[in-house]
């Protein structure tokens, strides 16, 4: 009962804060803008992508449709969406320190562990709602504007997925993307546990993400050895469902890695939080 009350209280705090809707607002502006621009540009978008292939292959009809646009927009999950998520996740604990409201919360007859988990669960709820909103808006609007069709996937070659086989892949992709973004949110939450300003966790999370993404692509032998162990090497699990056949064992392995990272960062954040002296 107490946990439900705490979770409700944390959700009230998070979802009645203007900052929470900054990410939603940006998506609400950017996704329609990009999709409308793509609709206006039309076939030129796929034309540019296929130019080199057209020398060897002959394509009949238009491959430009809502699915391909929605698939392209998923690339925002690399950096842009993590940034927006860290705005809120990084504020969950540090925001209380900045506002001085730790002094209200932590003198109550409820354990710090419960407060911590209520806050962490709220962060995950926000992340899932946010990724769900991105998926619903980007896929829904793309289909309304540009209709359906076969999905052209450029990854280690070219793959054409028939229109009837695409919807479930997007659904699964956004579930997996939610998992990836939950790891990002957990890292921001971890940094939030030991600072007193929400800017720090945002900068630290994005710094780690960008550095590890660079490490992940640089052709250096040392980096190649550590690459499989970096969480950034598993962030793109959503891409796995746009393969044929889908390598589920690879997806499960990445899910396990991401879950391990989330658990480790959450445990570290919990240890810091329950021992923390509240001096603000």
């Amino acid at each position, binding site marked *: 009962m107490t946990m439900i009350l705490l979770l409700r209280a944390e959700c009230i705090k998070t979802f009645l804060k203007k900052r929470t809707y900054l990410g939603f607002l940006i998506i609400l502006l950017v996704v329609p803008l990009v999709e409308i621009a793509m609709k206006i540009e039309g076939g030129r978008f796929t034309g540019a992508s296929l130019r080199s292939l057209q020398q060897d292959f002959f394509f009949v009809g238009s491959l430009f449709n809502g699915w391909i646009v929605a698939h392209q927009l998923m690339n925002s999950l690399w950096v842009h969406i993590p940034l927006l998520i860290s705005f809120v996740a990084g504020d969950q604990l540090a925001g209380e320190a900045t506002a001085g409201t730790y002094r209200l919360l932590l*003198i109550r007859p409820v354990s710090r562990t419960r407060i911590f988990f209520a806050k962490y669960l709220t962060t995950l709820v926000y992340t899932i709602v946010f990724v769900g909103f991105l998926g619903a808006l980007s896929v829904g609007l793309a289909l309304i504007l540009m209709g359906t069709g076969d999905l052209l996937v450029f990854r280690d070659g070219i793959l054409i997925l028939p229109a009837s086989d695409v919807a479930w892949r997007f659904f699964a992709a956004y579930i997996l993307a939610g998992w990836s973004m939950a790891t990002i949110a957990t890292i921001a939450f971890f940094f939030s546990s030991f600072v007193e300003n929400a800017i720090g966790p945002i900068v630290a999370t994005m710094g780690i993400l960008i550095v590890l993404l660079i490490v992940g692509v640089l052709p250096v032998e040392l980096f190649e050895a550590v690459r499989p162990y970096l969480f950034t090497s598993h962030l793109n699990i959503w891409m796995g469902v746009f393969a044929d056949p889908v390598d589920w064992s690879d997806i499960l392995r990445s899910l396990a890695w991401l879950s391990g990272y989330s658990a480790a960062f959450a445990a570290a954040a919990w240890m810091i939080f329950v021992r923390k002296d509240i001096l603000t």
Partner: protein
Amino acid sequence: MSAILQTFNLSKTFRERTAVRNLNLEVLPGDVFGFLGPNGAGKSTTIRMMLSLIRPSAGDVRLFGRSVLTERSHALARVGGIVEKPDFYLYLSAVRNLEIIGALCGGVKRSRIFEVLELVGLRERALDKVKTFSHGMKQRLGIAQALLNDPELVVLDEPTSGLDPQGMKEIRELIKHLARERGKTVFLSSHLLPEIELVANRMAIIHKGDLVVQGSVADLLESGEQKVVFRGTPLNRIRRLLAARKTLVRAVRRVGTEIHATMEFRHIPDLVKILVRNGVKLEAVIPRRSLEDFFLSMTESSAA
């Protein structure tokens, strides 16, 4: 009578700086306990340890006989408090803020929220966002949240800080009301001796982390020597006349443009008559207790 709040050799050290050292306090049921000390004396650090915001370096705090360190939830169940300035979720209404705090106390009824808001005079502003509140209103909302779970012990850390005289008076009246009408035990920290004198029955003084004195306010104020400061002209005549009354005045000395006499306050009217009759133009006669002198000297040394 068993103590509601006890500290046992409570200490806190931040790196090399000792903020509180071997503090032993005892608050009894029904007390309005004044916790007095100049700024930086260690009052807030002590309160933070009492309410489990910071972990003591040594010692323990027991609330209702339960250790804050090992039985935190049970120890805090019958306690409400406000630590330093009252900070809230500014973007939420007073009611929403109290709902959130209520959730941390296991849930409180909406009627209880309005009851405490009524008690602190904020019923009309219940649905307004806290960011529109003045400092005094936030201070009163701070007291409302401290009372939300109907605690037996209310810990108030400098609740009149930053308030105008009228606001200070209102808070003092509220504290008296809580103690007398509602039967609450109040632990009140302040850096103002007159404030403690006005509301507390027992008190402790802390200075640079050490407990200086603890006991009944009346006893502490009456204990030791009483001093009277005379201001007027001519100063030498005042000193001579007072020094001649050896049965009334124990010691006389000149301090700058004042004469300080060690004597009992009940002799003031007789001495004033004598001085006036001998042509002294008196500007002021200020009774000062040794505790007040002592506290003033502590405050001055802290400020320096």
